[in-house]
């Protein structure tokens, strides 16, 4: 069970190069390679069991409700890819040691590379689809960093951005597909999903799932029409190309197709879409590759072509084709990685990748030339090399096809044409670079690379030869177990021989090689022909599209979000209206079954006052003082309404809050313009707002009416029954506040305290100028603190405090309580502020209102905590009746202590707000007076 550690080792290895960077280059390389090498050893330790046909999986639950788990598996397919990823990865690490120059930040490069390696391993070993997707995105991000490694280079930046956009978008499609698939199967674990092929194919979502998966795979594996990012990703350092664009990144899409082959393949749609996409991509890539003058450009298009070939194989409806596809995955990874490395050596040692300049290098670097020639020959499918074997299998499979009906013979023909082009560009790679005259215009004399830079290429080319000559001994077992993993059941018969006798596939190979030579010999005419077509730069097209998207998004943003709060407020109301209106249409009648209360004159008068007051507030809203007075009229009637409808507590609260609010607003108005500018409101907005407001008013009124007339079963009976026995009070409203719902009240006074502190901070250091006259040009009254008010308010203070104490004490049994008493005390103190000014009060009231809030909250909180001492839940109340001589029998209740907390918090908050604001008027007035 070593495999479980494999994905974690490179994860850990990400940080190694960052620390090892301080060492010398070779030591850094060695340190970086250590953990991946260990991971590779672990794979090899488990390999015998895998080759024997076993598959392992292990998962650690994380959030089972969401199907999230840390889950890895090792079967033939995962093992094959892991070996490719780690093996070629190690070779690339060695190669990059010589490729990177002194100026490049080696630690950073290795860090990205190992991150990419870890992500790829995660993809191939994940046993959970969501986890697979996570790694999938990680490859997009790390490949972005790798492609853009030379970030000073504009092409690198653009290429990286393009790759990220395309593969990232594909990743999102894949996520959607995975979620759909997970919903259909009911699990995200691959063990389950891979055995639910029939269920998925019969599901109505099959087409959607397939399309989303294919978009994900095709973007990653550079299939038409998403292929254009790959050539631009060649701006990356060559080790990156050798790694990402031969063995790993672009194979991730293929891996996805292979991994989900048992689930998604086997339907008509799969065959048609996958095989035709692959076929077209193969032809397009092979044709385009021939005309690329850039060495890496040629290899990039050749990669696209070979990826198309593999996709085509996966799309053919025979199981042997899938086996051929797997075989070609290995072969292509090996010969393409070595070719990229060879191209990198040539670039590194001759200073150019342009095939019009680099000619005749045979003389300068014979060993590299030999290696590159063998690898190219493998790419072309020359016998005795690994490329030949898989190509033979490919040809054989194309002959078995019937997906195009009577036109199915086209497939082998087109395959042969593509193979001919493949031979032609391989030939060009060999002939143009190593022969064909002398180098032209090179800045330095080409020479052989450092000894160890060539080692990775040598190893890979040796593998090409070994697999090509002794396929059964080298690759046979791994191929077999991988095919088993892909097909998910017993394997069909196949043979890995070099010689199958004289048959049609051999003929096709022969034709392709001859054709390729013929095409290459006539290349002048072909180049001329290709030159007649305009050269479309995918980068420009792509940038234009992105730019158009950005412009479009900006336009939409401007429509939705133009920075006007007024508009947002309207939208909020409008959409609230849209949301609350529809359920009302389902109610048959507004009037319910309850009998109404008869109307009387008092209520009618109150209603008229409310409507007139509200209307007057609107009409005179430009004259702010008058609007404020009208508003206070409405507030007064509201408190009378509460009193009339049996809510004395509410009436008292509303009345005292009303006073505080009006004083606050009057104080604030002192700093605002006295009138609202009239001409500013657009008539259309006026109508629009009035309409929405009216509709909302109608709806609120209707709901209110329906609520009052429909029978309602409420939990209030509980409170009425238990207030006396459980809470020890007869005023049920107060008992609810301090006892039954004491925790809510505790939260509410906390909010009150927070609001007060927030206001205090807002007022701090606020610079506001005030005018010395009112809107009509009258000066403010000179008499700041009228004598009459001072005297009366001072003499009223004890009375006020007495009343508030009385209201507080009786609160538990009769209307009153901490809230109301607190407000009354606040009003008494505010009156002193009004009559005497802030400075006068500051001398006499030494307590800070911040502390008062804190004390109040602490008292309330401690009362709640006190019940813990008696092993009761937070805020459990206690009460007892005690008798004392002279005073008589009275009640002691813990709720009363809680109410004291409420009392202090309310006083503290109210006075902190008003005193801070009042202080501002005093200081501001002084500064204006001095002016």
């Amino acid at each position, binding site marked *: 069970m070593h495999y479980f550690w494999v994905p974690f080792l490179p994860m850990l290895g990400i940080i190694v190069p960052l620390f090892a960077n301080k060492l010398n280059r070779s030591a850094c390389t060695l340190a970086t390679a250590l953990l991946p090498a260990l991971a590779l050893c672990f794979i090899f330790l488990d390999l015998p069991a895998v080759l024997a046909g076993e598959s392992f999986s292990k998962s650690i639950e994380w959030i089972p409700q969401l199907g999230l788990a840390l889950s890895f598996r090792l079967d033939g397919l995962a093992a094959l890819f892991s070996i490719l990823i780690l093996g070629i990865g190690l070779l690339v690490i060695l190669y990059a040691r010589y490729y990177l120059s002194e100026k490049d930040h080696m630690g950073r490069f290795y860090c990205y590379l190992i991150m990419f390696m870890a992500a790829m391993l995660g993809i191939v070993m994940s046993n959970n689809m969501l986890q697979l997707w996570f790694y999938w995105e990680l490859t997009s991000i790390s490949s972005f960093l790798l492609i853009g490694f030379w970030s000073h280079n504009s092409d690198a930046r653009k290429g990286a951005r393009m790759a990220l956009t395309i593969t990232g978008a594909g990743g999102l499609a894949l996520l959607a597909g995975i979620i759909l698939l997970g919903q259909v199967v009911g699990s995200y674990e691959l063990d389950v999903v891979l055995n639910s092929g029939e269920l998925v194919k019969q599901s109505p979502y099959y087409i959607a799932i397939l399309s989303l998966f294919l978009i994900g795979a095709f973007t990653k594996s550079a299939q038409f029409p998403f292929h254009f990012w790959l050539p631009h990703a060649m701006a990356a350092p060559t080790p990156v190309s050798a790694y990402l664009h031969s063995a790993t990144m672009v194979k991730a899409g293929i891996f996805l197709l292979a991994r989900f082959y048992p689930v998604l393949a086997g339907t008509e749609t799969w065959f048609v879409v996958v095989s035709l996409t692959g076929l077209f991509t193969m032809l397009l890539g092979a044709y385009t590759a021939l005309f690329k003058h850039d060495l890496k450009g040629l290899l990039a298009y050749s990669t696209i072509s070979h990826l198309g070939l593999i996709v085509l194989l996966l799309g053919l409806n025979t199981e042997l084709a899938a086996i051929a596809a797997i075989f070609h995955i290995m072969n292509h990874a090996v010969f393409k990685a070595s070719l990229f490395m060879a191209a990198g050596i040539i670039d590194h040692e001759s200073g150019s990748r342009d095939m019009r300049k680099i000619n005749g290098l045979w003389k300068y670097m014979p060993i590299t030339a030999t290696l590159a020639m063998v690898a190219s020959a493998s790419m072309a499918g020359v016998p005795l090399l690994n490329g030949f074997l898989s190509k033979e299998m490919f040809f054989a499979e194309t002959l078995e096809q019937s997906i195009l009906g009577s036109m199915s013979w086209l497939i082998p023909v087109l395959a042969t044409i593509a193979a001919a082009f493949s031979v032609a560009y391989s030939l060009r790679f060999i002939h143009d670079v190593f022969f064909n005259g002398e180098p032209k215009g090179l800045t330095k004399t080409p020479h052989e690379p450092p000894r160890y830079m060539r080692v990775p290429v040598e190893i890979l080319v040796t593998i090409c030869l070994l697999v090509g000559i002794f396929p059964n001994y080298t690759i046979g077992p791994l191929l077999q177990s991988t095919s088993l993993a892909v097909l998910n059941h017993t394997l069909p018969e196949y043979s890995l021989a070099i010689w199958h006798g004289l048959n049609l596939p051999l003929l096709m190979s022969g034709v392709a090689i001859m054709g390729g030579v013929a095409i290459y010999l006539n290349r002048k005419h072909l180049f001329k022909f290709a030159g007649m077509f305009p050269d479309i730069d995918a980068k420009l097209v792509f940038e234009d599209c992105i730019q158009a998207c950005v412009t479009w998004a900006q336009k939409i943003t401007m429509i939705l979000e133009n920075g*006007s*709060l*007024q508009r947002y*407020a*309207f939208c909020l109301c409008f959409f609230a209206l849209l949301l609350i209106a529809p359920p009302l249409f389902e109610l048959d009648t507004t009037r319910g079954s309850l009998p109404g*209360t*008869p109307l009387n004159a008092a209520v009618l008068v109150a209603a008229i006052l*409310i*409507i007139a007051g*509200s209307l007057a*507030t609107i009409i005179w809203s430009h004259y*702010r003082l008058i609007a404020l007075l009208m*508003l206070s009229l*409405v507030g007064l009637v*509201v408190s009378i309404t509460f009193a009339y*409808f049996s*809510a004395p507590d*509410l009436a008292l609260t*509303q009345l005292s*809050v009303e006073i505080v609010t009006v004083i*606050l*607003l009057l104080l604030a108005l002192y*700093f*605002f*313009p006295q009138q*609202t*500018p009239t001409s*500013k*409101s657009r008539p259309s907005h006026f109508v629009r707002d*009035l309409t929405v407001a009216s509709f*909302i*008013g109608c709806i*609120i*009124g*209707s709901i*209110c*009416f329906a609520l*009052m007339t429909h029978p309602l079963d*409420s*939990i209030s009976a509980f*409170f*009425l029954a238990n207030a006396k026995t459980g809470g020890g009070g*007869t*005023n049920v*409203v107060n008992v609810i*506040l301090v006892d039954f719902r004491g925790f809510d009240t505790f939260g*509410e006074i906390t*909010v*009150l305290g927070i*609001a*007060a502190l927030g206001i205090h901070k*807002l007022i701090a250091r*606020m610079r506001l100028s005030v005018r010395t006259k009112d809107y009509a040009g009258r000066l403010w009254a000179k008499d700041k603190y009228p004598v009459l008010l001072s005297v009366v308010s001072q003499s009223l203070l004890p009375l006020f405090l007495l009343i508030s104490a009385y209201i507080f004490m009786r609160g538990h*049994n*009769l209307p009153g309580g901490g*809230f109301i008493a607190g*407000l009354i005390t606040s009003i008494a103190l505010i009156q002193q502020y009004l009559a005497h000014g802030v400075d006068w009060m500051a001398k006499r009231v030494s307590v800070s209102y911040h502390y008062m809030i804190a004390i109040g909250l602490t008292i309330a909180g401690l009362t709640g905590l006190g019940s813990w001492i008696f092993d009761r839940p937070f805020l459990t109340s206690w009460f007892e009746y005690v008798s004392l001589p002279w005073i008589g029998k009275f009640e002691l209740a813990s709720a009363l202590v809680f109410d004291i907390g409420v009392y202090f918090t*309310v006083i503290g*908050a109210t006075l902190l707000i008003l005193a801070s*604001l009042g202080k501002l008027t005093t200081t501001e007035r002084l500064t204006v007076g001095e002016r």
Partner: protein
Amino acid sequence: MELVYAICVGFMSTCGIFLMLRGHTFTLVIGLTLLSYAVNLFLFASGGLTIGAPAVLSSSENHADPLPQALVLTAIVIGFAMTAFAVILAMRGRADLGSDHVDGIEPFDPLAEDKS
């Protein structure tokens, strides 16, 4: 009576929301206060309208529903805190931005007479 009550609540909401949609902060605060009156009355009405029977035990046979009353009581106090916060925020906005329009600037011409 219920009908009249509901009309009043609806009308107050309309006026409150209309004022809240205006462009100047002080008007908005007035609208907010008016709307909170309406909302309090609305919540209060969910317990039905009862006359002469406060939720004080032993005062009468029937009792008004105490639960909405308790809810509304805290709502009134919190509503005050909210109004206070809104109006102070509006003042701060005027102090820092030089305008008492909700968008920070007057939509058409800059505040001419009010800036002193």
